[in-house]
């Protein structure tokens, strides 16, 4: 019997779903090997049909997007109930992703910014003729998937690249399942496989930090050596250095390697250490080239920052028992 697979999206942009299509003709082989039982973005499945399936009857659920509304939390819990294995797919599910930058402010401020006091301010509930419709609650905090339900595996990337998706699906379907809690990607830093590695000076020392739009970037030299804050030293490899090949710096979407607890802390260390200044004022001058440290260093992982980590949630596992904690 083919393994039953579910796909679902939460707070995400749809890029993770498109990334699946980026497998091109290889997608046909994947679709041959599995039975899709739930994938609302691509095919017409209804929540009530999925909810009627027995617990644990789905083999793998790929969930992308962060959790930031009560509806997403509800769906994550439902998927957890039905699936033997839950995979956090993409940077948002793994680390909080771009939507996670909302954690720099509160839900109330966001709603006020977007709707102000305008007449379009959303009603959270509407009743007519005995029928009631309610909008999901917007949480104050954007959460990675494993803060809401236990997660077996992580597929990194914004979005995950086809090679990573293929090897992840291959590993999961072959039954050669890696250790639970693994990130299904290589466990070394991006610099190790960077095509510009040979041009990186042994003693990297930069006198000026510049954003990509502030200078012409040489397409062969190490980006850090050119003063562009490239997060390759702190970021997990596996993407095929796509951004670097496009002459853009790594912004860290593959998240940390296995030995790092806090991505932003590590990225901060990598950038600050190579500044070529020993004196406070001069260091401050160079740092003006990095005007938004939190947004740059935690671009995809603010909800996973140690500081915003809340005490352990009491997870409810598939069998209704509290699951063991899921820190990675």
């Amino acid at each position, binding site marked *: 019997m083919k393994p039953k697979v579910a796909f679902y999206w939460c707070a995400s942009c749809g890029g993770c779903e498109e990334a699946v299509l980026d497998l091109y003709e290889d997608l046909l082989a994947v679709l041959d090997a599995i039975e899709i039982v739930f994938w609302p973005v691509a095919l017409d499945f209804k929540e009530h049909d999925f909810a009627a399936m027995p617990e644990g009857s789905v083999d793998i659920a790929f969930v992308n997007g962060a959790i930031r509304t009560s509806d997403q939390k509800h769906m994550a819990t439902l998927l957890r109930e039905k699936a033997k294995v839950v995979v956090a797919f993409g940077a948002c599910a793994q680390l909080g992703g771009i939507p996670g930058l909302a954690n720099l402010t509160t839900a109330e401020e966001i709603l006020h910014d977007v709707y102000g006091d305008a007449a379009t301010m959303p009603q959270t509930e509407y009743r007519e003729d005995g029928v009631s419709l309610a909008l999901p609650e917007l949480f104050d905090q954007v959460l990675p998937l494993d803060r809401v339900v236990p997660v077996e595996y992580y597929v990194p990337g914004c979005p995950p690249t086809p090679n990573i998706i293929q090897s992840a699906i291959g590993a999961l379907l072959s039954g050669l399942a890696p250790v639970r809690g693994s990130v299904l990607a290589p466990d070394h830093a991006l610099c190790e496989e960077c095509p510009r590695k040979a041009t990186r000076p042994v003693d990297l020392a930069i006198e000026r930090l510049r954003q990509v739009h502030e200078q012409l970037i040489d397409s062969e030299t190490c980006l850090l050596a050119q003063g562009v804050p490239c997060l390759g030293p702190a970021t997990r490899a596996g993407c095929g250095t796509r951004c670097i090949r496009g002459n853009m710096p790594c912004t860290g979407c593959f998240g940390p390697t296995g030995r790092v607890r806090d991505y932003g802390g590590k990225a901060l260390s990598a950038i600050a250490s190579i500044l070529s200044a*020993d004196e406070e004022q001069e260091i401050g001058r160079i740092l003006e080239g990095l005007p938004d440290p939190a947004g740059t260093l935690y671009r995809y992982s603010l909800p996973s920052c140690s500081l915003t980590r809340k005490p352990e949630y009491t997870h409810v596992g598939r069998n209704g028992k509290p699951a063991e904690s899921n820190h990675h």
Partner: protein
Amino acid sequence: MPEEFEPRVVAFFCNWCTYLAADLAGTSRLKYAPNARIIRVMCSGRVDPQFVLEALAEGADGVLIGGCHPGDCHYQSGNYKALRRFLLLRRMVVQLGIEPERVHLEWISAAEGDRVRAVIDKMVADLKRLGPRRPVLGVAS
């Protein structure tokens, strides 16, 4: 009357200067605030920003890093690396809603036992004025 707030300070002191200064403060029987928990590291350059974030996440009200004076680092440049990381880290934690006074860096040589006393006393007094840590922005309390 409510008990006075006693801040918890995690202090990372380098093995060659600041830790020896703390030792000197002890053997000189200097009296200073008992709020700092000192962790000895080989060099202030060993203090990974992750350590500071973790300390704050686990409930420290402030973090103090102590290293050798510029030019005196046992490993030549560890203290300069510490300074660069500290300056960027302080900019970043402010964005996350943490007051800059909670993260502090001081150069204290092995001979400056009295400076250990003064620095810790001042930091504890500052933290008492600030009060306990507020929840970080975006985190529902």
